[in-house]
């Protein structure tokens, strides 16, 4: 019976190959666990954030309140009822159109309300809406009414006391985004105001807190009860509609996990080869003395795995520590506690990696005849190596399934991984053979270096493939990380406009510009706006020209309402021409938003006719544009060339950035220009910027983790070939070689290996730009200097190799070792 004493479990640690394997598994465990925990944390935070943004995990919406039956279905869960409508507040002779949200005492289910006791006073958070008899008004409403906290205001037939200034709602983005200032009141007061009559446009919501798995059950129970006017929105639907950073981060996280798994698998595979050779003699001796297959496998594989378990455990502990740090770094208290199953899967993942990459090479020992091992003729046939490699690829696939729960979502990534792992050694084999043939005329040092690499394909190719992958992942990780950060920051610059102004007329413009100058407000531009309907396409009435019948279709919706048309000389920064060109400086041209154009079937060259109350306008479509709607800049479906809209009645739209401290001057602005609509988007902007800041930190952490695992795995791969290198050096020493020759051979070998790996990493980087660009950056991922990053690592490594003092141990001892 095999003995399992602690001493026997410590013994493998004397082998450098075992230590490499243990290190690779530690890195692998740490990376997988850290990335999975980070993704779990981010997903959880994001789910919370989206639930907060729509006001619940699940929202039943309708033009009438939820029925008694529906309320009974959710009675056991925290829930809240909301009614949202527009109404006019009256104070003396002043009327202000407001957007009202009437809430019950359970509101808000998630997040907190931010309020102030006075306009521009320091805000604080509260966890409930206003009590009955009270309204909370957003600042602009107070400014227009010229009221303050403590005054009363008339809502329909009721006088309600202004209790607080409403600064921010957690569900600000929940479809109530309106041009009118927000008012929050208690749901019980709505009936007494009499503002809701039959035909009034009102949206009722029943919001339910159903975290985690509960959501699906509630959805299932409510679905059969839905009336025609009702629909259900969930946090998952909202997440799909949400901003890009989280989608990008999630995809990038998945890709990172796969890359780390593949890298570490490569290192384990290389180290296992050395380990197999080390164990071979013991195995042969056991066979010679009649040990059975089970005993050999138990002794060799069982002890090997048992001795590796502390590394895996240490990886998990480190990952848990990193996870706690990450949670603190991302801010807020601990929000997500991984389940026992998650920890079990994380512990199992490196075992699966080891089983896939190392097990076949060690298992082979049980099948090899002892005489081959003892005669030192145990090289694996190439076909077996190919099978081992293919078998090893199943390990990351299994890990991917374990971690993601789905192969479909990872289809592209798995294809990429298989292509890289199988295709790369095949791809590298040709150039390596060519270099070997061409190297016959080289001097001794480069020839020896080349021979070492080219004539050990079973060692060199997996090592080279691991290095290519490591270097490519490093440069790609850096570029992707930097581009994600850059893109997110660019989409919401520090001084993104925090106020939008509508209804500015020509006669107001000079005074308005002067006010902006006085307040150092930064203005991206002024857009003239004409309200008009699209009435003709290529001379035909639009109803005949456009055949789509779907009322939910974007194009149909656009046809059923007045559109905001504008004209501009320059393409806005957040727009990108996807077809045709931007308008020229002559009237009669129009650029159309690409999705709307597709929906309406519009193409470049079409003639469009628009009808406005003040006249008609015609223009030719010269190009289509992609619009970044989340950009916090004014965006338009139809943008005309300068001069096209001159004859029509228009108003001006602009946005500007005003530093936070100057907000107190806004009431003056409203009093000076009473007809303007001033939209305060500070709260939305804060939410978006906060989201981006957190996503940026996570992307940075991910890139650092990938870089670190790449460096560690590359070092492990290099160390795996070290033993043979040292024996070769000893033999050269015996044959009279001096240090200078050994140094030249070693440096040239490294230069060939690392330089070749870097060149192929460049190719891999280049070929990954398109798929990565498509999945993460809407196709826009240009070549960058980051591609040269591997050289920043390689040059110092070669310099160290060149400058480091050589060990002068006795060559005989090294040769005999």
């Amino acid at each position, binding site marked *: 019976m095999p003995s399992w004493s602690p001493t026997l479990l410590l013994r493998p640690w004397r082998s450098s190959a075992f230590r490499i394997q243990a290190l690779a598994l530690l890195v692998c465990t740490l990376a997988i666990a850290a990335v999975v925990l980070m993704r779990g944390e981010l997903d959880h935070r994001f789910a919370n954030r989206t639930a907060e943004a729509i006001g619940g995990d699940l929202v039943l919406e309708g033009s009438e309140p939820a029925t008694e039956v529906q309320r009974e279905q959710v009675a056991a869960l925290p829930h809240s009822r909301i009614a949202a409508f527009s109404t006019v507040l009256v104070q003396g002779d002043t009327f202000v159109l407001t957007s009202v949200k009437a809430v019950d005492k359970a509101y808000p289910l998630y997040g907190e309300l931010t309020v102030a006791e006075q306009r521009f006073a320091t805000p604080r958070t509260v966890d409930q809406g206003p009590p009955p008899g009270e309204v909370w008004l957003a600042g602009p409403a107070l400014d227009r009414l010229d009221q303050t906290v403590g005054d009363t205001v008339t809502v329909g037939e009721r006088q309600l006391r202004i209790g607080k200034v409403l600064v921010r709602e957690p569900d600000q983005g929940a479809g109530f985004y309106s041009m009118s200032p927000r008012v929050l009141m208690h749901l019980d007061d709505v009936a007494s105001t009499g503002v809701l009559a039959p035909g009034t446009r009102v949206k009722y919501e029943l919001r339910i807190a159903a975290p985690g798995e509960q959501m699906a059950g509630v959805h299932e129970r409510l679905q059969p009860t839905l009336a025609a006017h009702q629909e259900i929105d969930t946090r998952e639907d909202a997440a799909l509609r949400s901003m890009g950073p989280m989608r990008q981060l999630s995809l990038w996280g998945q890709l990172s996990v796969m890359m780390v798994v593949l890298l570490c698998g490569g290192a384990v595979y290389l180290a296992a080869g050395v380990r197999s050779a080390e164990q071979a003699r013991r195995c042969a001796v056991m066979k010679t003395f009649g040990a059975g297959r089970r005993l050999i496998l138990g002794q060799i594989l069982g002890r090997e795995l048992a001795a590796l378990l502390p590394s895996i455990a240490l990886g998990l502990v480190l990952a848990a520590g990193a996870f706690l740090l990450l949670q603190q770094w991302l801010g807020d208290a601990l929000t997500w506690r991984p389940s026992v199953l998650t920890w079990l899967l994380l512990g199992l993942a490196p075992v699966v990696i080891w089983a896939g990459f190392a097990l076949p090479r060690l298992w082979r020992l049980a099948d090899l005849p002892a005489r081959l091992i003892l005669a030192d*003729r145990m*090289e694996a046939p190439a076909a077996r190596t190919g099978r081992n490699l293919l078998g090893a690829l199943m390990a990351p696939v299994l890990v991917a399934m374990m971690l993601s729960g789905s192969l479909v979502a990872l289809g592209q990534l798995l294809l990429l991984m298989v292509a890289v792992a199988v295709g790369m050694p095949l791809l590298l084999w040709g150039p390596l053979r060519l270099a070997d043939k061409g190297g016959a005329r080289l001097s*001794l040092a480069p020839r020896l270096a080349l*021979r*070492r690499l*080219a*004539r*050990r394909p079973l060692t060199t190719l997996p090592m080279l493939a691991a290095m290519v992958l490591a270097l490519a992942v490093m440069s790609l990780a850096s570029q992707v990380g930097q581009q994600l950060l850059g893109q997110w920051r660019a989409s919401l610059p520090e001084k993104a406009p925090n106020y939008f102004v509508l209804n500015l007329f020509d006669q107001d413009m000079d005074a308005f510009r002067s006010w902006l100058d006085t307040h150092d407000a930064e203005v991206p531009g002024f857009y003239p706006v004409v309200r008009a309907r699209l009435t003709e396409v290529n001379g035909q009435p639009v109803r005949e020209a456009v055949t789509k019948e779907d009322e939910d279709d974007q194009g149909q919706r656009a046809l059923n309402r007045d559109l905001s048309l504008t004209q501009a000389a320059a393409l806005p920064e957040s727009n990108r021409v996807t077809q045709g060109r931007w308008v020229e400086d002559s009237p009669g041209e129009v650029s159309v938003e690409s999705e709307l154009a597709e929906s309406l079937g519009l193409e470049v060259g079409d003639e469009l006719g628009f009808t406005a109350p003040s006249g008609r306008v015609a223009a030719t479509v010269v190009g289509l544009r992609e619009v970044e709607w989340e950009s916090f800049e004014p965006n338009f479906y139809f943008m005309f060339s300068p001069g096209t809209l001159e004859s029509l009645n228009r108003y001006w739209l602009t946005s500007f950035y005003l530093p936070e401290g100057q907000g107190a001057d806004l009431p003056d602005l409203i009093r000076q220009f009473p007809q303007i609509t001033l939209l305060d988007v500070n709260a939305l902007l804060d939410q978006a910027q906060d989201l981006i800041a957190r996503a940026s930190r996570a992307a940075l952490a991910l890139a650092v983790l990938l870089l670190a695992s790449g460096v560690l795995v590359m070092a492990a791969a290099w160390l795996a070939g070290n033993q043979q290198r040292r024996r*070769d050096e000893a*033999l*050269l*020493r*015996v*044959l*009279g*070689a*001096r*240090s*200078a*020759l050994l140094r030249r051979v070693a440096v040239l070998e490294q230069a060939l290996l690392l330089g070749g790996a870097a060149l192929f990493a460049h190719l891999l980087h280049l070929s990954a730009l398109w798929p990565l660009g498509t999945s993460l950056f809407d196709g826009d991922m240009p070549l960058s200097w980051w591609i040269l990053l591997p050289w920043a690592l390689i040059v110092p490594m070669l310099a160290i190799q060149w400058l480091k003092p050589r060990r*002068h141990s*006795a*060559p*005989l*001892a090294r*040769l*005999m070792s």
Partner: protein
Amino acid sequence: MASTPVLVARQLSKTVPAPEGELTLLEHIDLAVQGGDTLAITGPSGSGKSTLLGLLAGLDVPTGGDVSLAGEPFSGLDEDARAALRGRYCSFVFQAFHLVADLTALENVMLPLEIAGADRARDKARHWLARVGLDKRERHFPSQLSGGEQQRVALARAFAMEPALLFADEPTGSLDRANGDQVAGLLFDLNRDHGTALVLVTHDPALAQHCATHRELVEGRLSA
């Protein structure tokens, strides 16, 4: 040169640290080998034969005494200078062959010539491969050769440098009788033809009998 011994060892000792204290492997070894001499050192396993050979060839450093090759002492030399001294005067044949697995038979024979910067290394290597009967196998890698063939390549590599002194450590120890006899015959033929001094370490009395001088190593001491 003829009057200077090609190899001299004086009071050579080697101790290594062990759990029980210092362990003496070799003690007060004195020997001298003239050009063309053949010396067999025999002894039971573990008597220190290979350690002695390593010290004589400057592959290991003694803890006492000194070794000179052609009058030039190893003592005080760094690893590079010792390698240069070896390269000038001596060659090796090992029990485990120690061919470079990545190089063909021809390239293995060329290796010491190239290290020494010899002219026409390829031609010389071809000549020596032919001399050991392997001219048809020059493009084969070690893994494609039998044990006997590998040792013959090692012999060609050793003699290609036309050394004054050849160290052979159990040269037939890994071979069957037929191959062993063939390699031994070749070793002594080449030695005789080229006047090379030979220091042969073996536990095989039959092989030792081919040498002019025979000394036995027992418990770290060399018989007279």
